[in-house]
């Protein structure tokens, strides 16, 4: 299975990518697993996505938790706390 991952604002700039397709193991996947996989890339990925960093995750355009399950074809967005308004 695979998910599309989008990055926004400061995170997009820090990671140098706006969007990518990521293959995930077929067994039950969730947001935490995806984040582990991304942090395993090391460097800026490890730093910017450290669990102590204040980023947010949305799955299929809804705010998500670390335990939110992922399914094939999901759209996952990772972004800094929002600052509109």
């Amino acid at each position, binding site marked *: 299975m695979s998910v599309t991952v989008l990055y926004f604002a*400061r995170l997009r700039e820090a990671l140098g990518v706006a969007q990518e397709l990521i293959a995930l193991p077929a067994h039950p996947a969730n947001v935490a697993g995806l984040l582990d996989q991304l942090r395993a890339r090391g460097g800026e990925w490890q730093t910017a996505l450290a669990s102590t960093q204040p980023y947010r995750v949305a799955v299929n355009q809804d705010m998500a938790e670390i335990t939110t399950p992922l399914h094939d074809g999901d759209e996952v967005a990772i972004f*800094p706390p929002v600052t509109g*308004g």
Partner: protein
Amino acid sequence: MAVRVQEADFDLSAEINAFRAGRPEIGAVAAFVGLVRDVNLGSTVSGLTLEHYPAMTQKALLGIVAEAEQRWEIIDALVIHRVGRLQPMDQIVLVAVASAHRGEAFHACEFIMDYLKTQAPFWKQEQTPEGARWVEAKESDNGAAARWENLLTTNKHE
């Protein structure tokens, strides 16, 4: 209810008049307009770029307005949020809420703004003499949104 995300500016009178046209049951409109300030955290701000997550923005705003409609007896609500490049004094956001009585309009309008500030996927980048910088989320915004969490629905027709 309507939510719009747009680069173009908006005209307050035109929006409010369209919003309440032909609805004589509206007794109160509370509106909020957010504007680009020329200073922030001690730096001169010469401009702002507003990025957003297009697929999610509309959905997030509609969700916030729907939540307000559950909590208060409101007749209609309108949210307009601009994206792209903005200058100091430009309008960024409009939230307008119409109801029969003023208490509901005020509370729903403030609620929508507070939630928008923490839930709607917009990000501001400021242009300053020291270069461009992403605006940091304010802890006070989380506090402002959180205070609605434990609030019982206020009395209707308060």
